[in-house]
């Protein structure tokens, strides 16, 4: 360590690689924190955690008893154990007693990405509330057609302030804070949408994962989704720098490697398929006549709704894009019956197997990395986290949180500490700390160990910098 500091001084080691090295060393020694504790006021399972993106100081948690609380993770409210353990109590909590609070469980609580003056909560009572942090009042309210599973706002957005909401309804809605209305409705999924994430490379791209197993990429500037991930399209690892075979237009259903199929061919192909009746069920989504040779041309943007490719044989419960925007991780669990009870999603699946997949966003291919997951919690969206250089992904697996190496799929660390299922985890790259929340109503902090001897003698020093408002 000292040699590295010396190298850094002399310029042999670049500052960036110096910090990355220190950070990854710290991440490798993560364990349940011996100096920090978050006191959670929630009386039900914790569904969502997020540290604000501007300062990395305030942690927002949403729980199933309709309460949301904010904690300061950098400054403790009091100390215990002779000044060794910092206790972080919540700065405020909003719950059912609040006059405009939620009535049912909060499934998702996120900060407004620009500053911590606003936060947004989505709940199973079909409402999305926008709260003012300082006055803890609801400033805006959106009513959704179904239970809200996840909300997301783009951290890169400079021209819009849209909240993407994934609900149990098949349509994804974008709510605009500036106008108070819904600005977009994205159709294409065939079942509820459990996860929504904005792309980390473009402020216009939204990724959604549904209970039907499909992962769709939407560019909100135009109609329809431009990419549906298909698990049969795969590539071996990272993309080669020079493409070896012609990349096909992945948004079309044709699985054979034909190149340059133009969009006009699609409606005709659909026509023929339906004209050959034989008891094949009519596609419920397309606006096609049952038979006849009418050539009804669908809007090119709506062609994607006919694409029935699935990324997984199960409901997608977690999505996470890497920081550089190049790769996407998706977590899926089996679910037997879809919402309309008409289709069994994978009746051949007898167990509760789940898996994690890594997708290359640019090519839309599965990179075939095999993560050693056996069980993931079913029925609830889970929150994945990635470390900053995207080398590790933290996945809540039942009662433990496992850290997988992204490119080899090996389990690098397992964090066991919760008594019940873990729902969400958030990695703070500034402090190299992992916050996890689960059904046991606890928020646990995992941090690199701090040597007790450092702090023991002096106790918490009087901090004169704590005067900012």
């Amino acid at each position, binding site marked *: 360590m000292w040699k590295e500091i010396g190298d850094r001084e002399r310029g042999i080691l670049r500052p960036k690689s110096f910090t990355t090295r220190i950070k990854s060393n710290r991440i490798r020694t993560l364990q349940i924190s011996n100096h920090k504790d978050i006191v959670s006021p929630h009386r039900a399972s914790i569904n969502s955690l997020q540290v604000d993106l501007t300062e990395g100081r305030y942690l927002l948690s949403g729980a199933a008893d309709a309460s949301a609380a904010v904690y300061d993770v950098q400054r403790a409210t009091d100390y215990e154990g002779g000044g060794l353990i910092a206790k972080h109590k919540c700065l405020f909590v909003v719950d059912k007693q609040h006059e405009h609070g939620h009535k049912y469980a909060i499934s998702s609580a996120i900060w407004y990405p620009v500053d911590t003056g606003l936060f947004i909560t989505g709940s199973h009572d079909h409402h999305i509330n926008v709260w003012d942090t300082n006055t803890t009042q609801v400033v805006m309210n959106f009513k959704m057609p179904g239970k809200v599973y996840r909300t997301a706002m783009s951290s890169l957005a400079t021209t819009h302030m849209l909240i993407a909401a994934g609900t149990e309804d098949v349509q994804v809605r974008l709510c605009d804070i500036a106008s108070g209305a819904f600005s977009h409705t994205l159709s294409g999924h065939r079942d509820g949408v459990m996860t929504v994430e904005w792309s980390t490379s473009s402020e216009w791209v939204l990724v959604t994962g549904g209970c039907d197993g499909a992962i769709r990429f939407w560019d909100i500037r135009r109609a329809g989704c431009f990419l549906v991930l298909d698990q049969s399209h795969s590539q071996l690892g990272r993309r080669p720098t020079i493409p070896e075979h012609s990349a096909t237009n992945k948004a079309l259903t044709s699985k054979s490697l034909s190149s340059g199929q133009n969009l006009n061919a699609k409606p005709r192909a659909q026509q023929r*398929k339906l004209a*050959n009746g034989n*008891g094949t069920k009519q596609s419920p989504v397309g606006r096609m006549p049952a038979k006849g040779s009418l050539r009804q041309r669908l809007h090119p943007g709506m062609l994607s709704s006919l694409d029935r490719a699935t990324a997984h044989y199960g409901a997608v419960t977690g999505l996470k894009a890497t920081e550089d925007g190049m790769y996407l991780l998706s977590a899926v669990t089996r679910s037997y019956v879809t919402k309309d009870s008409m289709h069994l999603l994978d*009746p051949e699946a007898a167990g509760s*197997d789940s898996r994690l997949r890594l997708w290359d966003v640019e090519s839309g291919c599965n990179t075939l990395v*095999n993560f050693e997951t*056996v069980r993931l919690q079913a029925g609830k969206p889970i929150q994945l986290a990635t470390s900053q250089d995207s080398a590790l992904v933290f996945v809540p697996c039942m009662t433990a949180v496992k850290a997988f190496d992204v490119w080899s799929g090996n389990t690098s660390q397992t964090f066991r500490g919760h008594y019940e299922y873990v729902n969400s985890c958030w990695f703070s790259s500034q402090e190299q700390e992992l916050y996890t929340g689960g059904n046991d109503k606890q928020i646990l902090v995992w941090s690199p160990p701090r040597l007790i001897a450092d702090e023991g003698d002096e106790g918490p020093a009087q901090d004169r910098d704590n005067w900012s408002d």
Partner: protein
Amino acid sequence: MDKTSEEASSKGKKRQRDQQPTDPQTNQPHHQIFSLEDNLSFTDTLVALRMMRAQFPRIDKVSIQPFILRSQLYSSVKDRTQVDRELESLRREKVVRIFKLNTGQDDHAIMFLDDYLNQMENVVKRLEEKEGDQVFKWFRTHVIDSKLEPSIEHQELYTLLSLGGMVKDGHISLLINAGLLTRQLIDPNMYWFAIPNIGSVLKGLSQGRKEVLSFLNRRRYKEMMLASMEKKCLRFSPLDMRFHLRDLIGSGHLKTVQTSTGLLVRVSKD
């Protein structure tokens, strides 16, 4: 099949396999002539596949060509990502074919292409005597050759078969009756490719799995030495114990622990 391979496998399941290929078929007339260099370089996955193919148990009642389950591969080769990728390249090179099985739990069966074609031949021979239809030939030349994924859409099947001749819907029913295709339950327009005549073996597979797991679960500590486990005979499954053990270890239901007296098989609780 070979004595040496028997001994090699009984020593332990998780070791990397040594580069000793047992090549049951020396000539492969259906494939292009690879260069000598390509033919002699083996990947771990290919070696494991060949070895397990050689060790496939002989079943008297049904004549079935050897197939390997994906979970068995995972139990033999350490790095699963490598297995996935090598399997993908083998599939693209048309050396093997992958089928999704309906025994639940995301099972995939891997079969060498030649074995599959032989299996198809046996089944089709019996059927063609009655029907005499061309559809099986069309299926073999047009569909199997070009469609490498485990599933196919109705429309695409139609177009590919039409390359052979006039296709009627009765033809597709013939294919389904022969066991070469099955309909997907999730999507009525999609079909899975299937291995014909495999039904009884699959039943044996699921029953055998249950039997092995219940046998271990009934024991007091839910574990047993691998050596003594291998000697047991299964009542409900025509496949041997080693087949089931590999499959269960690879899918995570059982785990092996190295002890001072040898390998121990234990039910994993996770």
